[in-house]
């Protein structure tokens, strides 16, 4: 439980010596309660008091890690229930479920899907981060060889070992310890052994109980045994209960300020439905609220495109919208006669537009004026993307000196700007482009042909 200022004050030496940088012990206590300073700043505190305070002023939700090398992922560490209050920090990671009872074809299909879903969206590389392995046959060799096969075929995935059998858990943890796997399956009966395995290899430990109350007791026991690298599962295997679980565990940590549930949680969407589109709907809910690992049956492009995009949206910092630098950007081997397009400095828009220009294989220039960091219509509606700002960019970036072309392609959504821009920029002709950037490749080819004839 978090301590308030008065409770902290009672634990201080009350010398009012100012060595902590605060005028009085009370002032120090108040600041500490808000998380504005650290307990160690007071040199006169007893060790016991310091330990208690450090515990009480630690983040409400722990940040835990798994993985290896450049694929070490952080989970948890969230401080708010809604992204407008501050920001969400550690995005959820997607897992695809394998079962050692599955046939070869199924395994191969999932491996192929995992390997094909790998692309970049607004400078972020999108791929499945975790392969989850459930041991349902009880056959240790079979289980380990399945994991081996998948991690060898899918170079990016980190394994999540799912078993409640401590002997199998121990063997699998040892075999794959260098990958920093997640070990999932600590329960009421086996937790002491599971904790010792997790401790030995320093693994993130998935803890499972039939419901929130039982999980709460179990987590306390595990914490008492000194292990805190945990991932929580309160057992919900239908959408309603699982949603109740993730919301209330998060609220216990952040609203009740009870660190027993101050760990990230996992949602086994794969156990809640076999319908792929329903998985998409459920995973959407859990990205918004509040799962840190979302386990799916499979991942193909139809699932990935919405889910990774959503995750990217929800986990951008609301205080720092993604903006790109103004200027003139060269795509491909553009020369002074290549087509010139203009768009805005909102990163999302720029990356979509430049991606489509690249896909068209037509070398081109993209001009980015100061548009306030907004999308095309937002910038236009707020008066930031108009004839003046575009003309200014043409001058500032010395386009007339660099290029011979005097034609400017504008986004179709702001076709109304055509005559304004032509008035503002003498000698220039404005071409109205398509409304959606996806139609740009066809448009650019037609445009080049027309210009040639």
């Amino acid at each position, binding site marked *: 439980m978090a301590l308030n200022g008065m409770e902290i004050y009672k634990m201080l030496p009350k010398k009012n010596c100012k060595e902590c940088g605060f005028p009085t012990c009370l002032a120090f206590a108040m600041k500490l309660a808000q998380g504005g300073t650290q307990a160690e700043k007071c040199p006169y505190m007893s060790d016991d008091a310091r330990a208690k305070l450090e515990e009480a002023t630690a983040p409400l939700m722990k940040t835990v890690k798994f993985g290896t090398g450049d694929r070490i992922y952080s989970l948890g560490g969230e401080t708010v229930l809604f992204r407008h209050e501050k920001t969400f920090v550690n995005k959820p990671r997607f897992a695809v479920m394998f079962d050692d009872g599955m046939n070869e074809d199924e395994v191969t299909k999932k491996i192929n899907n995992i390997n094909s879903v790998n692309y970049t969206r607004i400078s972020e590389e999108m791929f499945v981060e975790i392969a989850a392995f459930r041991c349902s046959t009880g056959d240790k060799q079979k289980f380990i060889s399945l994991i081996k096969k998948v991690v060898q075929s899918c170079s990016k995935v980190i394994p999540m070992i799912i078993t409640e059998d401590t002997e199998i858990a121990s063997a699998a943890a040892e075999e794959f310890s260098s990958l920093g796997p997640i070990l999932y399956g600590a329960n009421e009966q086996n937790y002491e052994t599971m904790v010792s395995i997790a401790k030995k290899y320093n693994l993130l430990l998935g803890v499972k109980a039939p419901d929130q109350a039982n999980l709460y007791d179990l987590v306390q026991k595990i914490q008492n045994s000194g292990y805190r690298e945990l991932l929580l599962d309160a057992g919900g295997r239908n959408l309603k209960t699982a949603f109740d679980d993730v919301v209330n565990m998060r609220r*216990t940590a952040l609203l009740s300020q009870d660190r027993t549930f101050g760990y990230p949680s996992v949602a086994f969407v794969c156990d809640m439905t076999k319908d792929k589109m329903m998985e998409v709907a459920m995973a959407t809910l859990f990205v918004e609220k509040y799962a840190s690992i979302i386990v799916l049956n499979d991942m193909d492009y139809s699932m990935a495109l*919405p889910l990774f995009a959503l995750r990217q*949206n929800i986990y951008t910092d609301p205080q720092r919208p993604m903006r790109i630098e103004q200027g003139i950007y060269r795509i491909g081997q553009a020369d002074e006669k290549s087509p010139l397009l203009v768009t805005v400095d909102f990163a999302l828009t720029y990356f979509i537009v430049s991606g489509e220009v690249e896909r068209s294989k037509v070398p081109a220039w993209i001009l980015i004026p100061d548009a306030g960091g907004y*999308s095309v219509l937002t910038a236009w509606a707020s008066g930031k993307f108009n004839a003046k700002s575009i003309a200014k960019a043409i001058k500032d970036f010395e386009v007339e000196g660099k290029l011979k072309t005097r034609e400017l392609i504008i986004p179709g959504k702001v076709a109304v700007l055509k005559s304004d821009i032509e008035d503002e920029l003498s000698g220039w002709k404005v071409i109205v482009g398509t409304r959606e950037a*996806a139609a740009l490749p066809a448009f650019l080819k037609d445009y080049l042909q027309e210009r040639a004839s």
Partner: protein
Amino acid sequence: MPYKKPSQKFGGKIREVTIGSGLKLGGESTLPFYSFDGDTGAKPAIGMEIWDIFPESWPQSLKNIFGEYAHDPVKWAKYCIEKSNPDFICIKLEGASPEGNNKSPEECAAVVKRLADEITLPLVIAGCDSDEKNASVFTKVAEAVPDKNYVFLSAVEANYKEVGAAAGMAYGNIVSAESSVDLNLAKQLNILITQLGVKPERMVMNPGCSAVGYGFEYVVTTMDRIRLAALDQNDVTLQMPIISPVSFETWKVKESAATENDMPEWGNQEARGIAMEVATAAGVLATGSNAVILRHPRSVEVIRNFIEELTA
């Protein structure tokens, strides 16, 4: 120390609004689907989008499903009802667009009147992309279908006076107030419309929508904030149910519109379109929408199951 399950009790409540002859929206005093906290109100409703003209611009997969019926909005609506049993039909008067068919308000009114005579489900009537044209269209349409509790999508800052006066006051229908992803704009427009004389129980709102991946974080955050203001701060000016025209946004983005020839590695185009629609719908429902508008029968089925499971 035993576990004490947390709970958030709010003083505010979303107003319950009845559309058509008995479809209830809103009424909740909790965050969306937080049945563990209290009364989650009416189940969110699902509507299907049809047009008054043939939807030439829709992806082929949708035209394969509806093409046979889509030359006649009444046939189209009946097909949707028979096949997917939605809670309401959204007729988008795309044909009114001054840049397109430029149909007259009278023609539009006749289409809606026919639908009203032929189907019993509530209608949500959406306009074209011209606010000015919508003002005259909505006025005529509202007059043609008086006292039906049909929803007019939407009144915006530029035309709320005409739309509010006709749909919300003179002819006994419901006004949807549409603003651009901003709590204060939503609040301001709701206030202006009520000051005009429209009763709050004859209003719903659309505080902005987009497809996942396309500025969707702003939509989520705006809706989170609107819902918290309505429930936690009991802000009566924001207690209207929210309706989200999901399909208007999701079918034009590249993930749905690119053919398999355009993007071979992306695979089946129809599946991509459904997944974008499903994710966007689930995404807005999870942050407070009381009704979503969809196109694909499969999306309707999935979102219905999603709602059923969360409200069971």
